[in-house]
């Protein structure tokens, strides 16, 4: 059964028609990636899914219920967490406080404590720096923090926007390994990436977005083999 079903989504950024009838589906347990150039509408789509932007037209069904146009907090509560582009950690707060805020809507202090330990086990670097202001972390550490913070909400669906942006190759590898691990433990993932090679290597299925429209979709293998995708997004080899 599909966990997330988006149909004919139209979103405007002021006067700009950013998404023009996008339809896609994410099944429970999958890693689905959206690839496309800068400005294609990938981030707009994620922001609409998490309630930061309201769609003008179209439907978003999550676990059989419509969430199109719902408030961001009720979408988090329903089990969708969004790790935004550029990490957006609270730079004026410590690493620990950032992680704590990820569990803002939860009341089960015992469960929160356990998940804190889980985040620190996944990212030992964050444990070392837990009293440090998060603005002083490196880009890779901030990405870890943003992901750890999002996991504190116990999401069933995790939206990741450009997790590899601006990171050293070794750090990109680490982050992608963690994405795979998170998925293995049962969280469904919708991944937006410009690094199409890397994204297709861990994805089950993929969509290619161009100027607000889905132009190609298929399994990761199909896309990796497609001449068109190779030429435009995989560096032409």
């Amino acid at each position: 059964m599909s966990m997330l079903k988006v149909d004919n989504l139209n979103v405007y950024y002021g006067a700009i028609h950013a998404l023009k009838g996008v339809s896609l589906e994410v099944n429970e347990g999958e890693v689905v990636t959206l690839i496309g150039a800068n400005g294609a509408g990938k981030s707009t789509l994620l922001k609409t899914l998490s309630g930061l932007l309201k769609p003008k037209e179209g439907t978003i069904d999550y676990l059989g219920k419509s969430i199109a146009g719902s408030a961001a907090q009720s979408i988090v509560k329903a089990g969708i967490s969004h790790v935004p582009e550029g990490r957006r950690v609270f730079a004026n707060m410590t690493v620990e406080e950032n992680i704590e805020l990820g569990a803002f809507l939860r009341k089960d202090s015992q469960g929160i404590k356990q998940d804190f330990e889980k985040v620190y086990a996944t990212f030992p670097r964050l444990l070392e720096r837990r009293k440090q202001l998060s603005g002083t972390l490196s880009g890779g550490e901030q990405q870890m923090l943003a992901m750890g913070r999002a996991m504190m909400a116990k999401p069933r669906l995790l939206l990741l926007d450009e997790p590899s942006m601006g990171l050293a190759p070794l750090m990109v590898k680490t982050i992608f390994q963690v994405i795979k691990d998170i998925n293995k433990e049962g969280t469904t993932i919708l991944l937006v990436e410009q690094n199409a090679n890397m994204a297709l290597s861990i994805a089950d299925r993929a969509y290619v977005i161009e100027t607000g429209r889905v132009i190609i979709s298929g399994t990761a293998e199909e896309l990796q083999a497609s001449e068109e995708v190779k030429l435009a997004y995989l560096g032409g080899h």
Partner: protein
Amino acid sequence: MEWLQQLINGISLGSIYALIALGYTMVYGIIKLINFAHGEVFMVGSFIGFISISVWGLGFFPALLLSMTACAIFGVLIERIAYKRLRNATRIAALITAIGVSLLIQNGVIYIRGAQPAAYPDVFANTSYNFFGAQISSQAILILSVSVALMLILQFIVHKTKIGKAMRAVSHDAEAAKLMGINVDNIISATFAIGSALAGAAGVIFGVYYTKIDPLMGVIPGVKAFVAAVLGGIGIIPGAMVGGLVLGVVETVVSALGFSLWRDAAAFIILILILIFRPAGIFGKNTREKV
């Protein structure tokens, strides 16, 4: 020990400025609005304290709590009615609205009760203590202890409680805060409530200390508290406390040196100097804007 006496007077005055400045700075930190109606919340708080004590016969602390509660509600009403719908408007529109709200409240109070001043009743037998040759009134001690206690409570709320952490998160990045499931509208209301409660407390303390209150009493302390907030670095909570104290002491020193007519000017000279030489304030970091 004349200087010690003056220092204590200055700190008492400064702690009133600090309490008002906290509301300015918290609201600015979260929605980038200079809430020029904040001085009027201080005035309304003072009158609520006045009525509680002289009409209903309450003691100082019940009157203080009542005034803080009423001001908290009043502040949230102002935000919901006047500012909320301007959240995405230009900043100048919100600023002009704030000035309009300020005038509305001033004249509303004059319409209801007239413009004549009222004399704050004595709630304490005012005894003086001799402290290293300085005369310290019990009222000055009370003002200081109440102000310090309120600031400590505020620090606790902002740093240790869930709502305080959410406030800091919203003030840093409201959109990212939404992604944590934080209801930004509620947090903005809470900020107005806390800031207005502090202004209400300052109003009651002001009344007890200076004994004369009137519907326009919020104008000058309001503007000076704004100077204090800018001096400390607008948006920074410890900055408002330090800015208020510094301003109070400077004003008292200027008066003590025999320039009491220049007292108000001192505050504005400080504002001009800080805007020229250190616009980010004492605690502010000079941030470069990315283009």
